[in-house]
């Protein structure tokens, strides 16, 4: 897709979006008519609809803006309110399979914390989280904050096997679990840890994940026993199960890509310096929105047919 001039670019995008909407609308009408007249609809047609409604917004870059809901702004406000020099722990408790959903929030949170001069301790409870951590280092930490120094402004502790066992130890003693960081620098030589002996000295812990061990284990083993402020960014599937912990046991929660998009939007709205930051989650909400509309249309069509058939059977 070579773009010749801005005018053409705008029109190409508009044409694309319009065409997509028309095709999807016509398709749904056809689907409704077909099933209404009692013919079976192959499930593969539904797959094509979903593929189309996801692919088109990616190609034509449809995006929306989102207002942060209280549970998201609570985390944002907490990060904003921490004084410079406070220490935040960000734990990467996810693997590449979950990454499309939660990597955007991990990046946004790292960017936000570093720009506010907070010190970050990175670690992961998922073995493959280490790779995702490297991704953040490559795209955010080293790229956007070249002046921040390893060991002084942030430290990467890497992966430690043991899940809850690790948490059970670091709630009272970091050094016991992490005698060195990921680059074998001894604990005592890492400046970030000068005033940090255990999780209880931290100002905020953010667990990003969606599996086990994850945020629930953090709350159970560190947040509650250590009285440490906790927040989380999680894959959408587990978000509803974590709501009961808000606001007493976790102070904020980013649920799925929507939570991440809301966080990105809030960062962009409130800080001039983030105007041009990459917003992968917001970009992802375009396909999300269209796909959700299509799914809702399916549900409505399905229910109309269900009630009609029920009435017919009764009649």
């Amino acid at each position, binding site marked *: 897709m070579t773009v010749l001039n801005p005018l053409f670019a705008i029109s190409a995008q508009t044409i694309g979006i319009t065409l997509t909407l028309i095709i999807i609308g016509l398709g749904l009408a056809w689907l409704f008519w077909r099933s209404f007249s009692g013919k079976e609809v192959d499930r593969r047609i539904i797959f094509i609809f979903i593929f189309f409604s996801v692919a088109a917004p990616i190609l034509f870059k449809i995006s929306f803006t989102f207002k942060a809901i209280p549970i998201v702004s609570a985390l944002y406000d907490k990060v904003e309110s921490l004084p410079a020099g406070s220490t935040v722990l960000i734990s990467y408790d996810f693997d590449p399979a979950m990454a499309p959903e939660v990597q955007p929030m991990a990046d946004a949170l790292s960017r936000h914390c570093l720009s506010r001069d907070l010190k970050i301790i990175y670690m992961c409870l998922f073995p493959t989280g280490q790779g995702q951590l490297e991704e953040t280092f490559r795209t955010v930490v080293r790229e956007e904050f070249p002046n921040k120094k390893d060991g002084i402004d942030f430290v990467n502790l890497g992966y430690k096997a043991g899940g809850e066992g690790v948490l059970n130890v670091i709630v009272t003693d970091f050094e016991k679990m992490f005698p*060195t960081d990921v680059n*074998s*620098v*001894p604990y*005592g*030589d890492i400046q970030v840890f000068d*005033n940090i*002996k255990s999780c*209880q*000295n931290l100002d905020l812990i953010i667990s990003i994940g969606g599996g086990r061990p994850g945020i629930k284990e953090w709350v159970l083993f560190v947040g*509650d*026993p*250590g*009285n440490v402020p906790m927040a989380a960014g999680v894959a959408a*599937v*587990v978000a509803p*199960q974590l709501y009961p912990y808000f606001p007493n046991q976790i102070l904020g929660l980013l649920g799925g890509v929507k939570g991440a998009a809301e966080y990105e939007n809030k960062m962009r709205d409130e800080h001039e310096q983030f105007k041009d930051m990459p917003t992968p989650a917001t970009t992802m909400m375009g396909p999300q929105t269209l796909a959700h509309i299509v799914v809702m249309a399916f549900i409505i069509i399905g229910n109309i047919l269900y009630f009609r058939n029920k009435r017919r059977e009764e009649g």
Partner: protein
Amino acid sequence: MKVKLLIMVVMMLALSSFCFAQDNATEAGTEDTDTTAVVESIILPAPPGNLTGIDKPNDHGHAAILSWDLSPDDGAGENSVLKYEIYKWVPQLMLDINLVRDSLSVIQRILRNTTSGITEGTQADSMKIVFEKYSRDELFDIRNTLIAHVKQENTGLAEASNSYPENGAWLFVDKKPSGTKSFVHIGSKDFKSAGFVPDFANLYYRVDAVTIDGAKSSSKVLGPIQTSGQWYNTYRTPVVFSVLFFTLLTIYFVREARKGADLYVRPLGGIEAVDDAIGRATEMGRPILYVLGLGSAADIATIASFTILGRVAKKVAEYQTELLVPTYDPIVMTVAQEVVKSAYLDAGRPDAYKEDTVHFVTQSQFAYVAAVNGIMLRELPATNVYMGKFFAESLILAETGALAGSIQISGTDEIAQIPFFIVACDYTLIGEELYAASAYLGKEPVLLGSLKAQDYAKAAIILLAVIGVVLAQFEFGAAFVNLFEVAN
């Protein structure tokens, strides 16, 4: 060889410690002289008053809480206090030991090849130069000897602190911004760490008010205070009470159930649906498919499922319908075979029992799903029962069953999978209902007893919530709400 080496090292340490101790002493001393010198040029802030300190309660020791009254100059005009600095008095012995600790850290770094961070010209650098001459084996020996030395010397710390104020120095602990009135000094419990604070030793603290010009005035010295660990953390009393409450309740009801007490469990819709569904299958002449899920034989959900399988198998034997039980786990298969066999026996139809009713499929999640789906589409069972632990396969199974037109009854305690079962099945036992169903059918004492105990705990929650919500409207209700606060 070893002894010689040790003597050398200790000699060297003694020499260096003497030099550094001098430095420390002068540092500590000069502070006082500094302040007097400063008086002439800059106005000193008023010192913080009324410094008090106690052992931090409910901890493992090695920590103290200090509190003081703000300096009258805190937040007042030109001479405003910028920060408070907390100092601790330590005996000379502690300084000596700290030196050994520092040398230990340097040895450790040499052994780990991480000496690159050591800045030239520092104390660590000179130590590095000395130690680098030794081989790794020798360094290991030196290290072990030094650790033993530190450990040995630490025992004398408590006694050495009695010499206050002679033979020691003030060490900087931490700084706090103006407006701070208290500080928790959490020392290390590890004797090898520089921040080690011995328990049951006399500790002396002082707090300095510091202005922007660096002018300081010290509070009166606090001390001696001692730290100690406690066996019981009073903050966690609510946890002890609830642990006791739950445990006793469970033990009591399990005992009652064992004695054969009549513990009422209400009938559940899903279980009655099972009976109807078996009747339907008989009428249609089609089999019943029973899936035990992916859990192991030790999972409560699977155990509960065995009881329900027993009930289903008995009915099936009575009605002479066909039963299919494909299993995922070999141990689950063995147990399920026993359950079905005895159910046929109970129904008085042991002859109708077939060995391959319960069969093993595979231990690969999606291969198992594919096989079960195949059974559903080929055999077209009239009823599918899914009870036990289910994961990502729940929707795939339930959807295929719905497409095949079977009546479906499900039950699982995996919260994430319940919504999928609810949309695709005719009846779903939600979470605990699965256990209840099993307790209702099987009257197994442990299940029945714990179900009863849970019911009482639930009643307690409702009661506490109602009382709490009413009391929360009033000022005095706060005390009740605080009962549930588990501080650290």
